[in-house]
C-alpha cells in the first residue's frame, strides 16, 4: 500500500502549525489546501499578490480579478492582504514565509533540488520557484518517491538542472517522510504497508533510519471521503 497524491497532501497539512505562512507550489502541493485543519490559523501565500488565499469560489461567485498563482479563480480568507510583486517577493526571498511546499524532479542528499526544467519540455519556465527555494524558512518537497518509470527521485546528486542549492529540509512521498539532515537522508515515517527495505530499494542514496521512525498515522479515507491510501 502507498499514499495517493491526496494522501501525501493530507500528511503535509497535518504538519503545518498554527501561525504558519505557507506557499503551495503547483501540482501535489496545492492539494494541501484541501486538508488544512480549520481549527488552526494557517495563511496561504500566492506569489501574484495574496496572503490569505481562500477556497475556490462557488459557481456564480467568481470575481474575475481574483486569481491565485495557478491562474485559477480563488477567494480571500478572512484577514487576507493584497499587494504587488515587490512586496510579494520580499515575503518570499526575505525569509518571511515559514514554509514553501514544492514539487520536485529530484532531491539530493545535501538538500539540492531540481524542479523547474521538466525533462522533455522544450520551453523552460522558472516562475517564483527559485525565489521560494532560497527564501522560505522551511522548504518541504512533495512528490512521488520514484518517477513513472520507477527511477529514484531521491538521489546522491541531482542530474537535472538545479532550482537551488542545499535548501530542502524534508520530503513527503507516497511511501515515506524523510528529513534532509547534515548527515544525509533520514527516514522518519513509513506509509502504511511500506517497509523500510522497499523504501530503501526505491531510494537512490544512503538512507538512515531515525531511532523513533514510525508508521504514519493516516486514515485510508479522509473525513470528506477522499481516498488517502491505496
Amino acid at each position, binding site marked *: 500500500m502507498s499514499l495517493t497524491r491526496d494522501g501525501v497532501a493530507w500528511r503535509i497539512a497535518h504538519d503545518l502549525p498554527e501561525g504558519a505562512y505557507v506557499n503551495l507550489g503547483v501540482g501535489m502541493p496545492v492539494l494541501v489546501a484541501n486538508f488544512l485543519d480549520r481549527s488552526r490559523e494557517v495563511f496561504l501565500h500566492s506569489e*501574484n499578490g495574496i496572503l490569505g488565499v481562500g477556497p475556490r469560489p462557488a459557481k456564480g461567485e467568481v470575481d474575475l480579478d*481574483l*486569481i491565485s498563482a495557478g*491562474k485559477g479563480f480563488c477567494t480571500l480568507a478572512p484577514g487576507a492582504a*493584497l499587494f504587488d510583486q515587490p512586496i510579494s517577493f520580499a515575503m518570499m526571498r526575505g525569509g518571511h514565509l515559514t514554509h514553501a511546499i514544492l514539487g520536485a524532479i529530484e532531491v539530493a542528499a545535501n538538500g539540492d533540488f531540481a524542479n523547474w526544467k521538466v525533462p522533455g519540455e522544450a520551453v523552460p519556465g522558472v516562475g517564483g520557484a527559485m525565489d521560494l527555494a532560497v527564501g522560505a524558512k522551511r522548504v518541504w518537497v512533495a512528490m512521488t518517491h520514484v518517477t513513472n518509470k520507477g527511477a529514484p527521485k531521491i538521489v546522491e546528486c541531482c542530474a537535472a538542472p538545479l532550482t*537551488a542549492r542545499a535548501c530542502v529540509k524534508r520530503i513527503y512521498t507516497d511511501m515515506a517522510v524523510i528529513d534532509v539532515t547534515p548527515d544525509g537522508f533520514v527516514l522518519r515515517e513509513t506509509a502504511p504497508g511500506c517497509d523500510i527495505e522497499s523504501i530503501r530499494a526505491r531510494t537512490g542514496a544512503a538512507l538512515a533510519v531515525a531511532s523513533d521512525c514510525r508508521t504514519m498515522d493516516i486514515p485510508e479515507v479522509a473525513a470528506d471521503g477522499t481516498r488517502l491510501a491505496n
Partner: protein
Amino acid sequence: MIDKTVADCRAAVADVRDGATIMLGGFGNAGMPARLIEALRETGARDLVIVSNGAGTGPFALGALFGDGRVRKLIASFPAPSSTQFRERYLRGEVELELVPQGSLVERIRCGGAGLGGFYTPVGVGTELAQGKEVRTLDGRDYLFERALRADFAFLKGHLGDRLGNVMYRGTMRNFNMIMATAADQVVAEVDRLVGVGEIPPEQVHTAGIFVDRLVQADRHPNLLEQPKEGGA
C-alpha cells in the same frame, strides 16, 4: 489643467516604433492590458522586445503578438506552458527568450524605476540561470548581480483612473502593473472606468499620477471574461 486622458487605445499606442521595448503588466488574465495590446497589434510595429511575466494566456493580446510574428525577444519568468503562439515561434528559433526568476525580474524593474543600477540576489546561484553573471560573496553567502531593466513603454491595466493619471486596482490586478509604471519612458494605463479627480480615495491611489503619461478607458476584452487554463506559476 493636466489631462492625460486619450480618446482610445489606438491613439494611446500610435507612436510605438519598430524595435521598441514594452513592459506588459498582468499575471494570468488579472491586470492584463489586453485592449492596449490589441491596439498595438494594429499599429504594425515589429521587432518588439516584450517584458512580461508570461507569454500570454491564449490566441489574443500577447499570445497573438507572437502569432503575428511581431516580437523579437521576450524577457519573462514563466513562458511555459500555456502559450502555443509563443511556443511555436520559440521552437522555430524566431523569438529569443531571456528567462529570469520572477522575483529577480520584479527587482530588475524596480531598480530601473528607482534610479538604481542593479542588485545582488542569492536567487539563481549555482543554477543555469547564473551563467554570465557576476558572483559576489557577502558575509559568507554567494549572490548574483542582476542589472536594472527599463523600457520605452509600459502598458498597465487598472480598475479606476482619473485625468491626472492616478490608478486604483482591484483584487490581484496590482501584480506587475504598479512596478512597471515606474520603469518606462512612456507609461500608458488602460482602466475600466474614468472617474473625477478626488473620487479615488488618496489611500487607494496605488499608482500615483506622476508615473502615468496617458490614460484611456476601455471595457474588458471578451477573452478575459472566461476561466483561464490552469497554468502553473
